[in-house]
């Protein structure tokens, strides 16, 4: 299964990246902007999927990792005047460190307790953002000015507020994370993560320190989600506490479930689907959430393993 068709697998992933690249030149302005946003958030979903899909750990607190990246990048730019690359790395580092601390404590639990503990940590993080309103802007948030969102490489300067630069930056991050995820999933480490999901007790009896492996997965997941948050702050110029709320812990779960948990491309498909169903239905009626809800129910009924998960089960067994 894993070693059956590496060529086909890589071709598929490169193909998806190439397609997204071409779309930049084809899509109308509005959809180009939407796609940039979707790719940045699909990274969030991929980070979530690593933990939820592959290790089987259901967290309800991933908004804290996303917003650790968001604020880690946003605050260093806003208050310290850091450049874009440094701020991005600061955001990722904040997410990884937070994930390490939360992982050490939360992994003492499992199942429902793990969901509650991660949710509580995320709430603490959210309240801290509001509490330190003097720096974070509280529930108003902060707007990062265009001047601070220009990257100068050598003599050239890239303005992240330019739609094409923004699209290509989001695509670059998305591609890197997609390939990293694929590499992890196909690695020995990935095999151990799946084994933990399937039967943790048995995995221990094969000589694996399952707690250490789970912690590594939490940190990797936190860092990827923070990368998404950091990119979001820098590309769209807004840092706000709403991104730390419960809603943003539920959304990646929803995107992953829709697209297909434990599939590498599922997070993108799920995020894309959700965004467009919302976008299209809200054009017809103000009760668009009702239609979104019905669509979700139908999907769960007929594609219980998500879109790509069901496709893999029925037709394409080799899908990673």
């Amino acid at each position: 299964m894993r070693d059956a068709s590496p060529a086909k697998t890589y071709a598929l992933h490169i193909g998806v990246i190439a397609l997204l690249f071409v779309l930049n030149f084809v899509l109308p302005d509005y959809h180009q902007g939407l796609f940039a946003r979707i790719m940045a958030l699909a990274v969030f979903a991929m980070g979530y999927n690593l933990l939820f899909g592959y290790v089987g750990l259901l967290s309800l607190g991933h908004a804290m990792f996303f917003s650790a990246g968001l604020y880690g990048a946003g605050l260093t730019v806003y208050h310290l005047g850091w450049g874009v690359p440094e701020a991005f790395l600061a955001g990722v580092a904040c997410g990884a460190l937070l994930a390490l601390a939360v992982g050490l404590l939360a992994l003492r639990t499992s199942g429902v307790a793990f969901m509650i503990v991660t949710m509580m940590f995320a709430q603490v993080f959210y309240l801290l953002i509001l509490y330190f309103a003097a720096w974070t802007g509280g529930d108003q948030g902060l707007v990062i000015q265009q001047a601070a969102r220009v990257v100068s490489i050598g003599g050239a300067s890239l303005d992240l507020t330019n739609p094409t630069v923004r699209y290509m930056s989001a695509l670059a991050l998305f591609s890197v994370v997609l390939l990293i995820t694929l590499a992890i999933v196909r690695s020995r480490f990935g095999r151990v993560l799946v084994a933990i999901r399937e039967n943790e007790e048995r995995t221990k009896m094969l000589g694996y320190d399952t707690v250490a492996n789970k912690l590594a997965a939490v940190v990797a997941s936190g860092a990827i989600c923070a990368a998404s948050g950091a990119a979001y702050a820098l590309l769209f110029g807004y840092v706000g506490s709403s991104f730390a709320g419960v809603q943003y812990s539920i959304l990646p779960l929803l995107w992953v479930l829709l697209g297909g948990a434990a599939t590498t491309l599922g997070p993108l498909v799920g995020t894309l689907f959700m965004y467009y169903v919302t976008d299209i239905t809200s054009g017809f009626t103000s009760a668009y959430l009702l239609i979104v809800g019905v669509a979700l129910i139908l999907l769960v009924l007929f594609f219980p393993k998500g879109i790509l998960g069901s496709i893999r089960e029925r037709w394409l067994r080799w899908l990673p």
Partner: protein
Amino acid sequence: MMPLLTTKGLSRNFGGLRAVDGVDFALMPGEIRAIIGPNGAGKTTFVSLLSGRIRPSSGMVVFDGADITTMPAYKRVRLGVAYTFQITSVFANLTAFDNVALPVQRTLTDGRSKGQVRTGVMAALERTGLADRAGTPAGQLSYGHQRLLEVAMGLALKPRLLILDEPTQGLADSEIDNFITLVREIAKDATVLLIEHNMPVVMQLADRITVFNFGKILAEGTPEQIRANAEVQDAYLGATHD
């Protein structure tokens, strides 16, 4: 010769029940030892204490000269103590290949073996006759093949001590013959400790037999000695002698 494994006063209580009660036990390198005894005699609890799945209430376990009483199970595995489950416990959604790849890559990481994961996996699958089923999800294998896969996973750990908990349970007679050959082969490079209810298998395989009853060792000896032992007959058949 120094024993590979010894226990001193090993005990485990579950509430008021002394499932394993002050057991002194020694296992010599290279032997095939069978543990037999009536249901509830404490056999599975005893081997679980050896593998580290549960902690003893008192007493100690020494493996190859080192005290491993408080060592977590996964570290014991890395020392070479492998355990195959009584209830088949393969990863049902993973292929046979991936099931065996997990122990193989473990020994590679520990530096206890060399080479490619694929080579090691195929070797273990070939030894157990499962090579042509490498790509099949383990859950779709027949019960007998799942038991063999379990053994293949144990083998792939390159154990110095392989603990088999009722390995022939649910196997057909034809499969049992192959299994006996397989265990003899394993015993060429490892010490084997097996819990077994099937007496013909025990009598054919074991160098020595340890009989458990009420959490204690009731008797120990060669198959002939155990067969002739009156106490053992009592424990099994409930007969009374005067």
